[in-house]
């Protein structure tokens, strides 16, 4: 109802034992934007002081869940900046909003879902007992606003392998208004294996990655993965238009990366 989370009675260390009514506080930009009457404690990830962005010896990049969009946007890869600019949100929100928060919100238009899905991101999840598991981004995001996270489970980091970072990248996005929320966002990559991988987001419930060979019918391949749940339908765009824009972008990207 209002912007203060009135039901919250405590802000605790993120290592505190998990209990019902807890919510992870990353940047707070999603948590504070909607009523959260079920939330009674905030687990403050700001206390963790994780290194936002670590470049490992193998060339992979590990993004802490708490890495802010502004910190991420400084990465030299052009695709990173393009995806950050796909945010509906202001650069002022970038100063606070986190990579982990964008993934865990699981929204179809989440541009860092698009980015990390396209770059083969591996999501490290930690359960309340310290147990770890790793999921790909399409495994983590299971529907519009739905993730595979279990109660109390924490997204610790997303690792982008060196191979994915070194591929050629192309990105296209459509929205109803010039700088508005994405209605279709397609990223293509092409690596040493010459396989074009298309990551389709915003026009679908969840991210889909489609590998395109030389003889692949791109439209059919995309239609096939989207078929089960259909093209996304909300205020940000008509599903048929989203489909059209997605397929158009897919073809444009295929041509760009194979020329």
């Amino acid at each position, binding site marked *: *109802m*209002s*912007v*203060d*989370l*009135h*039901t*919250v*009675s*405590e*802000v605790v260390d993120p290592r505190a034992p998990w209990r019902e009514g807890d919510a992870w*506080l990353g*940047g*707070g*930009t999603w948590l*504070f*934007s*909607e009523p959260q*009457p079920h*939330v009674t*404690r*905030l687990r*403050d990830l*700001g206390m963790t002081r994780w290194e936002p962005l670590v470049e490992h010896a193998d060339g992979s990049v590990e993004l802490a869940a708490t890495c802010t969009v502004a910190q991420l946007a400084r990465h030299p890869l052009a695709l990173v900046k393009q995806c950050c*600019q796909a945010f*509906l*949100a*202001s*650069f*002022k*929100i970038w*100063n*606070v909003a986190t990579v982990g928060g964008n993934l865990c919100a699981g929204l179809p238009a989440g541009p860092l879902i698009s980015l990390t899905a396209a770059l083969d991101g591996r999501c490290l999840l930690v359960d309340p007992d310290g147990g770890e598991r790793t999921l790909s981004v399409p495994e983590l995001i299971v529907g519009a606003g739905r993730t595979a996270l279990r109660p109390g489970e924490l997204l610790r980091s997303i690792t982008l392998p060196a191979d994915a970072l070194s591929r050629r990248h192309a990105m296209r996005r*459509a929205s*109803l*208004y*010039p*700088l*508005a*929320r994405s*209605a279709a966002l397609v990223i293509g990559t092409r690596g040493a294996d010459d396989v074009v991988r298309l990551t389709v987001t915003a026009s679908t419930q969840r991210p889909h990655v489609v590998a395109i060979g030389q003889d692949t019918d791109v439209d059919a391949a995309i239609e096939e993965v989207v078929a089960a749940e259909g093209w996304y339908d909300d*205020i*940000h*765009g*008509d599903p*048929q*238009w*989203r489909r*059209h*824009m997605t397929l*158009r972008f897919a073809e444009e990207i295929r041509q760009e990366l194979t020329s």
Partner: protein
Amino acid sequence: MNYHVTVNGVEATQPPRPGQCLRTYLRERGCFGVKKGCDTGDCGACTVHVDGVPVHSCLYPAVRADGAAVTTVEGLAATVPGDGLHPVQQRFLDAQGFQCGFCTAGFVMTTAALDEEQLTDLPRSFKGNLCRCTGYRAIEDAVRGERHVERPAAGRGVGANLPAPAGPDVVTGAARYTFDVDVPDVLHLKLVRSPHAHARVVDIDATEALRVPGVHAVLTHADAPERLYSTARHEHSEEDPFDTRLLDDVVRHVGQRVAAVVADTEAAAEEGCRRVRVCYDVLPAVTDAAAALRPDAPRVHEHGNVADEVHGEVGDVERGLAEADAVYENTFHTARVQHAALETHGAVGWLDHEGRLIVRTSSQTPFLTRRALCEVFDLPQDAVRVLTGRVGGGFGGKQEMLVEDVVALAVLRLRRPVRLEFTRSEQFTGATTRHPFTITVRAGARRDGTLTALAVEAVSNTGAYGNHAGGVLHHSLSESISLYRCPNKKADGYAVYTNTVPAGAFRGYGLGQVSHAVESALDELARRLDLDPLALREQNVIRAGEEMVEPGGHAADLHIGSYGLQACIDVVKAARAQPTPPAPPGWLTGEGCALSMIATGPPGGHIADATATLVADGTVELAVGTAEFGNGTTTVHRQLAADALGTTPERITVRQSDTDLVGHDTGAFASAGSVVAGAAVLRAAQALAGDLVKRAAAHLDADPAACTLTPDAVVVNGHRLPLPELHTAEGDVVGHGFHSGTPRSVAFNVQWFRIAVDPDTGELVILRSVHAADAGRVLNPMQCRGQVEGGVVQALGAATSEEVVVDAAGEVTTTAFRTYHIPTFADAPRTEVHFVDTHDTIGPLGAKSMSESPFNPVAPALANALRDATGVRFTDLPLRRDRIWRRLTLGPSDPA
């Protein structure tokens, strides 16, 4: 918990509440410049700097500011050397980069944080900063350092770009809006709202709610006066049906208030709301206007689903259609759109030491709201005082009583100060909207373009209550039709109740909706006759000196007091003749225009009292009833008074919008601020000037006719009597002015667009936007231009993106700015504004109103340009990218 934050250099150690955001923490420390516009990080009105980094404080956990230095707009100037303003604040003053000013602190704080690269890309840099008033051109000018304001000499105020007197307060965060005051011991009121579109309230169990610590009362229909009234505010209250009860035992739309919980804190009030148990008997509901007109439809009110109707014919439309060489008929739909004023509805009330009820509210109609409160609670007029602070945008939405009644009930019951401030989401679910219309037009013309018939059938959806239903319907079918000469005209209209959020007054008051249909139909008629659409209009428009013919009935006090329509058309002709801006390859291009006419005030009278008083220091204090919400009337009133008194505007102080100040004022609506209240101000100032000269002449033993009033003295033959001395001798000298709002003139607006459309994506780009306006004598060109630009951009929102979506169950699903898209900096084209040279015989000093009217021709001009580019007539608003693509690709059979 140890907590330490520095706010504008002042240390604070009071820890925030665990779930508190920085915005409310800062406001609790008196930083009222930090505004709430959206609660969701979309509008940027709450922008502050945390250790120099700009953030939206509404989404920033206050606990995170521990150890930080926070700068708000109040502290910005101190971050630069010297005593003056921050350069960005000065630029917003110089360009007058604001209207209501509610968003200004956010724009100033954002601009101050932009680096060189960001300054080169303002559309992107201002993602997340919304302005509903200006259309952004004035903001861009401010950022670029353009200077528009002028300092006119004594007696030269009218016609100059005098700055708004509130400017310095607006840019420093010192301007006081409704809630920017500290009311000690205030209680917080929150509303329980109906989840059902139509239901009888069987039982309300407040037991659990009352157990919440801090909850003082739960008010329900059992506590509410029985008396029915309308939330709409009009000079004549009988213009609206009395169909609303303060808290009712029948709810007629999802979101209707059911109970009010009053508590020590917002937290307790919200918890109380969650614990109120309401038992409903759900009734059949109808959400569609056409369905509601069927005989077997569920009845929204016992008296039926027709809130008002209009029927009238002049000549014989059927004969006129038979005589036509071409006939066009089609049905058009306009969307339900919301005002989206940045300041939400809200009021705070208390009892003064004499037990008088004081209500401070965000209203365009303090006097009419006082009248309504007196009627509802059976109180004498002097027992209630209603006033406003600076009002953060209105656009008609605040010509309603949506909060003051329930606040008053709580104050009178608990004898304690009480506040109610709508959230942004409540603005969409529990306030009002523009009336969505379905309009069928039949128009016929001869081969030479002469109109033979014009028939309009309009059905408006007024939602659950009839506030403004009749007024909007009548107005919608008036100037939109009387604009054209045609021997056979017919108007039929129904305002229909449905179980949806109520519609109400909104800039243009129905004209924008019907003009969309009429102006689209005339465009098609011209095409069928192979005539130029502008030429067909030009051939048929009403001419100077002609009677206005309205089939629904003509008000006798409405005249063409000046005629600038032909000059407006000529502006568009000149623009069309200029070279066409380039369009991207493969895109379709086209042009379109539309005309509109609007009365300069409402029918039936609009009353304004004003006084001009000489005070002790020799300056003049002006008192007016009308409210300032960015419309700029305060500036214009100062100009009018200063010239009448032969002085400079700085020597005129304006006090306003308080029922204690003057006798009566109908309010700041129907574009009446300059032409009605302004006329009263002019008369008051003239009366004072005459009286000052007369009294001074007596002291100087001179002939009044030989005396001259100068800025600080009355002068005759080298002798002067300084005004402070005159005051010492005479005390306060008061001039009174009054205006009844009649007779009325008309203003004209013509909009023209050249556009490009990508048929494969549906993207529509405005290549050129030209707006010609007949505002009579333009009293303040800078402000008047701002009104036009803001109106055009607001109308472009309604034309291209805005839509309050109501689902099948009657629930509004677009409840935030991220789902209800109003124009952003990136969306707003620049419009070339041309004022034509007229001098009105009715308005003060030749002026006409220019606040609602720029809205009205915009959507049809765009639809006509889209028709020109694509060959397809789009009948329904908004013209969204996906819908344009769909129609062009999938064809007309598609049920969009």
